[in-house]
């Protein structure tokens, strides 16, 4: 079966949760024996370290100007690329016709704005899969409300909701991240829904990286540090600010929190560094974006992985990733959406108020360093490669094995 997966970001290098999920789903298709192509529709300016893949659409000046004016609507504007840019519409149509996929899988709802007119015009009608990552409009609501006028925020949120409801209804099957979101998709009229929870991989590393990060972050044997990794997604930082901060003076002289990932680029304007920034920086170390090798080292070296997550939709790959290590995990119960039963796994500490969270962080960092080897059974639940092909196969089981056909029109 020939599969075309479309998303609003490149897959390499995969840094944020969306990239990691799509990369895992693409790999799951391959493991099912499908010929998979990934078409990225994205702004290269926002992914400077990603080469533009051969199968890609990039926006022209008109779309870039819209993004510059309302950056929080980047996904929406990218999704409308074919509807607004004739050249890109022609290019997308050409890709669809040349590839002639049996199955089209749309990651997140945004590209539906460009595809809903094009797909019916194809000679061969592919099976349509909506790969939902969140109840998108609910998650974006908070971002739009913060960054846009009330009227504009409401309109934008309504636009996203219309897209995801329409796509859910038109798709032959919808993939959801959690059972709760599957229920939402069903309530919108989804024909079929399959839950494919977020899994993770534990990035490999090597002794040189371990040694280098050990020397950098543990200059004295008694230095202890908690680890927070996140993309430059403001709600993630808001969680860290709420549960770790806003002041970091509660951390003892030998205790630190280490931030990694795109979130570090948001710190300059964060309340975490607002008052007495020198004192805050004495407790917060920001290492910036790191490659997989470094991430693997940091996840293995930290004294506790912190998941101060209090907003968002879907589930968090970071939670799954944390549980694949043998390090203590300090998290909100919200961070375990989709992994609720794993809150009782060894070395997992749940704290749902900022006071409890900070207190527990101090306690874990003050206690002797402890590791919590987790079971192979737990790993099987969390590793993408262990469960994603099976779940995806179940999702597509309604298709005849030879020539899948779509019911949408």
């Amino acid at each position, binding site marked *: 079966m020939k599969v075309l997966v479309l998303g609003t970001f490149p897959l390499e290098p995969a840094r944020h949760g969306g990239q990691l999920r799509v990369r895992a789903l693409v790999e799951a298709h391959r493991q099912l024996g499908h010929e998979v192509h990934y078409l990225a529709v994205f702004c290269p300016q926002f992914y400077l370290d990603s080469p533009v893949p051969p199968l890609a659409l990039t926006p022209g000046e008109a779309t870039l100007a819209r993004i510059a004016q309302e950056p929080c609507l980047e996904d929406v504007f990218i999704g409308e690329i074919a509807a607004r840019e004739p050249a890109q519409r022609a290019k997308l149509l050409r890709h669809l016709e040349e590839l002639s996929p049996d199955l089209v899988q749309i990651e997140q709802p945004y590209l539906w704005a460009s595809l809903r007119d094009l797909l019916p015009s194809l000679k061969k009608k592919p099976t349509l899969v909506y790969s939902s990552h969140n109840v998108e409009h609910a998650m974006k609501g908070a971002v739009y409300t913060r960054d846009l006028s009330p009227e504009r925020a409401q309109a934008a949120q309504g636009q996203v909701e219309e897209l995801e409801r329409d796509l859910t209804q038109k798709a032959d099957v919808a993939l959801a991240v959690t059972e709760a979101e599957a229920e939402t998709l069903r309530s919108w009229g989804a024909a079929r829904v399959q839950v494919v929870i977020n899994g993770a991989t534990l990035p490999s590393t090597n002794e040189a990286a371990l040694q280098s990060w050990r020397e950098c972050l543990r*200059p004295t044997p*008694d230095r202890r540090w908690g680890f927070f990794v996140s993309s430059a997604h403001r709600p993630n930082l808001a969680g860290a600010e709420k549960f770790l901060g806003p002041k970091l003076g509660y951390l003892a002289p030998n205790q630190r929190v280490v931030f990694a990932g795109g979130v570090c680029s948001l710190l300059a304007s964060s309340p975490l560094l607002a008052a007495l920034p*020198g004192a805050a920086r004495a407790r917060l170390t920001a290492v910036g974006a790191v490659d997989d090798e470094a991430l693997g080292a940091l996840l293995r070296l930290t004294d506790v992985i912190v998941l101060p997550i209090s907003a968002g939709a879907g589930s968090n790959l970071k939670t799954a990733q944390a549980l694949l290590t043998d390090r203590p995990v300090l998290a909100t119960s919200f961070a375990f959406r989709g992994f609720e039963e794993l809150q009782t796994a060894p070395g997992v500490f749940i704290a749902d108020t900022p006071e409890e969270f900070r207190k527990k962080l101090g306690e874990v960092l003050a206690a002797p360093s402890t590791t919590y080897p987790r079971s192979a059974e737990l790993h099987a639940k969390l590793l993408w490669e262990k469960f994603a092909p099976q779940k995806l196969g179940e999702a597509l089981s309604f298709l005849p094995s030879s020539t899948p056909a779509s019911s949408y029109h």
Partner: protein
Amino acid sequence: MGTLWIDVTDLKRWKGPRTGIPRVVSQISTHLLTDARAKPCIFDETAGVFRPLEAAEILFPDVPAAPAPAPGGSAVVRGGGRLKALFPAELRDPLRDLIFAAYRTLRGLFAFLKAFPHKMFAKSAGRPTDTLSFQKGDVLLALGSTWGSRGYGEAVWRLKQAQGFRVAHFIHDLIPVRFPHFFGPGFGEAFQAWALDALWISDLLITNSERSAADVRDVATELDLRCPPIEIVRLADEPTKVEASQRPKHPEIAKDFVLCVGTLEVRKNPELAYQAWKLLLELSEAETPQLVWVGSEGWLSHDWRYKVQQDPAIRGKILWLGGVSDEELDWLYSHCLFTIYPSLYEGWGLPVAESLARGKYVVTAGNSSMPEIGGALADYHSPWKAEELASLVARAIVDTDYRQAKEAEIRDAYRTTSWADCAERVRTALDGHLPR
């Protein structure tokens, strides 16, 4: 019975005669070390441990002689504790002089007391190899500029956790926390980090003024930290004893001059003095005395110095002396009309106290800790209003009766504090809060 370990790292590092914070460390520790249960130690930042010292190493170092004063130079300067200014040897406390004399007499007989420690000092990085292991019940007294020791807070915290001793920390001020813009790039932030650790590791804080104590409490609140108990110990202001006053070898010193003693840095507010003198000169060049500013060159002062040197309207009416010995300072205090101190902020404000201790009328900025020192004996102005400073200076120049009346009042009412008093108050604070 626990031991009082006095951290004298500043003295180990100090390359010249002791002034500023090293003088505080030297004088207080000299007195406290007369107690057999008190011992000196230094912090080895490379190893993150403390090392015990022989008391003699600290009490009787071979202090280099003061270089000859150099007008406008910086070889021998006063003030500027954070800038490692040099200053003539002091060894002037009577008790210390006595011990010193005895030591000099006996040094031939106890050559090892001189040679062995001296050799240890001679290795510039050279440090004793013993590692100090604190006992439960011990107290570590940090009197100096511990912010200059990399990893100090973390190391003390680690050692406290393992060895169970207690820490008393002298906080000279938190000015770089509150006013990072008075200092060079990065210093304020580094100081904030140090302040956070100081609050964490300390069981008792000692400050030199109510103002500094309030600043410490404010910073603790801002950091959401419990503030340890604070004791306020007034620093000594007894005039330095010199064998003979000496007029600075600077031909431009006028007959009538007003003295300002303080590191030449933006925080000391030389700009206000410049503006006030400009106003006075506009009113009457003939009646305006010279302003002699005595102090080492410090943070962010270059522009001011250039302006004063190049401004034709000043014409020698403001003179900066960057290198002044104790003997010369004594002469300057004796011969000045009065003193000014326009500082934007102080933790203590020693020049105000020194002026009063020498019976000299002082016009000072009325902020931070200065009113604690001067009370009703000084006159105060806003550190932002040159007109106010100019007005007070003009009155002090013109109305000699007023000035003399103030001087009489000062002589009657001002009580100097000796280093012995100061050390005794530290001892009392330690005994009260951290009994051993």
